[in-house]
């Protein structure tokens, strides 16, 4: 099986380049995932660099651009991919090395969304109550694994990574706005005012298309916009 993989080591390369790799058919097993193949290729050439950890799609380490589409290598079946398989780092982020990108901007925007519960009431001795229906509002939001597949496939985030929060951070913004226990609705909405942080979303929906967890940031962004509209009326 043939691969074409983006290589760049600033320690020795002046320019990035694409390198061809071949994985022996004998090493391929039914149900093999792309990450398994990458680990085999790394055994052949240990300079090939990428992040990985859980191998089952929950840690969010191995986001990369796979045949032109962002995804997680560990839950992408090899058999689903056209060869030669072209692997590149996630788009529009500074490349540290090979498939490893610098996610500083992504994490900065995540922090800017105040991704934590704010509740200033005295703490009860037991749990705060939340009905199953209220809790259900968080489904499809809290499962985000911060792999950055969505934000790095979003043209609005490419153009304004410092001003537009991006789909992942906005999904978290809505996760807390939607939480019956959170009391900071006004603060959260105030901070999203203006033309960039929220409103740069043009519903291109690449985020929905690529999310490996099947989440829908575009819908969450729409809900925030609705809430803002309601508040201004």
């Amino acid at each position, binding site marked *: 099986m043939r691969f074409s993989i983006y290589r760049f080591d600033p320690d*020795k390369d002046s320019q990035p380049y694409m390198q061809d790799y071949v994985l022996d058919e004998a090493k391929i097993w039914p149900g093999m995932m792309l990450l398994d193949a990458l680990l085999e290729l790394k055994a052949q050439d240990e300079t090939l660099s990428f992040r990985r950890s*859980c191998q089952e799609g929950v840690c969010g380490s191995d986001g990369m651009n796979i045949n032109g589409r962002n995804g997680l290598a560990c839950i992408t079946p090899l058999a689903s991919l056209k060869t030669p398989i072209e692997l590149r780092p996630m788009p529009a982020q500074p490349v540290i090395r090979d498939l490893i990108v610098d996610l500083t901007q992504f994490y900065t925007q995540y922090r800017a969304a105040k991704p934590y519960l704010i509740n200033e009431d005295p703490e009860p001795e037991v*749990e705060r109550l939340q009905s199953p229906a209220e809790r259900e509002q968080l489904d499809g939001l809290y499962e985000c694994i911060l792999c950055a597949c969505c934000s790095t496939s979003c043209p609005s985030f490419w153009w304004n990574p410092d001003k537009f929060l991006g789909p992942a951070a906005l999904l978290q913004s809505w996760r807390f706005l939607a939480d019956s226990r959170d009391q900071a609705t006004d603060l959260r909405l105030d901070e999203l005012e203006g033309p960039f942080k929220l409103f740069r979303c043009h519903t291109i929906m690449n985020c929905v298309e690529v999310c490996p967890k099947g989440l829908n940031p575009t819908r969450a962004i729409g809900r925030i916009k609705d809430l803002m509209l309601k508040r201004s009326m």
Partner: protein
Amino acid sequence: MSLPRRKFDTLIIGAGGGGLRAALQLSQAEARVAVVSKVFPTRSHTVAAQGGVNAALANVLPDNWHWHMFDTVKGSDYLGDQDAIEYMCRAAPRVVYELEHMGVPFSRLDNGKIYQRAFGGQSRNFGGDQAARTCAAADRTGHAILHSLYQQNIRARTHFFDEFFAIDLLRDPEGNVLGALVLEIATGEPLVIEAKTVLLATGGAGQLFRTNTNALINTGDGMAMALRAGIPLQDMEFFQFHPTGIAGKGMLITEGVRGEGGYLLNGEGERFMERYAPKAKDLASRDVVSRAIYTEVREGRGCGPDKDHVLLKLDHLGVDVVAKRLPGIRETVKTFLYLDPAETPIPVYPTAHYTMGGIPTNRHGQVVVPEHNGPEEPVLGLYAAGECACVSVHGANRLGGNSLLDILVFGRAAANHIIGELKQNRYHRPMNDDSVDQAMARLSRWDRRDGSETVDGLKRELQTVMEQHCGVFRNEEILKEGVAKVVELEARMQGAYIKDHSKVFNTARIEALELENLMDIALATVCSALERRESRGAHSRVDHPERDDVHWMRHSLFHKDGRRMDYKPVRIKPISVEPFPPKKRVY
């Protein structure tokens, strides 16, 4: 050698649940905390915990902490320290409520309280009917907890060193811990972090075994750092094999599946756990269920063309329950097996899962060693919590739902003790340059450009040796061969080299350092297993099938120096209640 230096009150190594719970406690107390993690915090392995965290909230069925304590002592096969177990079980409701206040999206009951499910080894009234003690956020509880803890640390402005790899602890000749040498992975630059106290929270070593449920980062780095600093590891022979990993692949299928009413079937369609555990059946302790599956397969009653696994059936639960309570494992099974567990049973087999042993600590998280004044003298400035530590609350076998509890309770307890310590020790001790040089030597060893062995090749061999020689069932001969083989691999590792010498994000070098760590822990595990000539909890010796409380109700301590074994008594006296004396363990 002059290296860049940073100074903090406390250095925490590891950003899983234990490290982050401690960091939060310390940041909120306005200590200066640095958290060093080789991966971005939310990539830590706590994220993969599924089923939930145990606490006697009594939201579903009557419950109290004393019953939880009994189950944990019994589950540990009486090797757990009863003071620490009492402390953990009493603290459990409080730490879970704290999590809820932090924003963890627990599943809810109709009355709005936290949802709790049944899990293995749980009972009401000291061995009576099944309890429902495991607080869950669907089957993504670890993810929900880890993300919430990270988020609260953002709010508390904890200082993170993301993607820094800890090389070694720094100590002065008197044995005080002064900090650690760490490596910034992105640049390849070493950094000395000085701290008045250091907390190791680096997790387990599931990568010891070829088929495991663990992330690739679980290489026991903190345990190996402790060994190299002259600290022994405790009870390393006790390694948990989870009964239900996906057969041949290893992905974890939560015990919550059986807690929700799923059960195991052999090749004859028989619900075989009824024979092994007439009362608890599929919710017996993990060691019991793993041995049962292994025995069924060995005796020819496995499933599939090769009769090499059993089936976990949950299709009778209905699509709604599966979708609502077990969405994560449904997704995993669909992804990796192309089948829907709401319709088709899952092929499962026991899979390496959890390191019960680790760095010996007391219930305040202080690392304790046998030195001048008895078997448990604190190492000044050093703490450990979570899977890398051995308090010991899990003894010879951990109960499902107690690992998330362990990291929360003892992460918090260690932080509280550190806060007291910081008040008494206001200044950093002088740095010891010899210690820095030694740690640097470990790093520069991998600069060599030729050799005869590869890191990847040795790791694969090591994992195979451990699987074949230190698995579910063990005996003298197999273990002796195992020790010899690991010793040989360790010798061959001296001839290993890497081809990548770039300074930038050099993952080959990190994997080499991880292999060294795994090698130390493999030796600790297989040597401790050889010496323990009885069967207790997860350690099953077919040549010594009975538990031997007279000779072996004691903790093992493995020293790296000379591969020496040492022992210390189990703390059987709880804090405030009567001890639970050892009894025959039936489920």
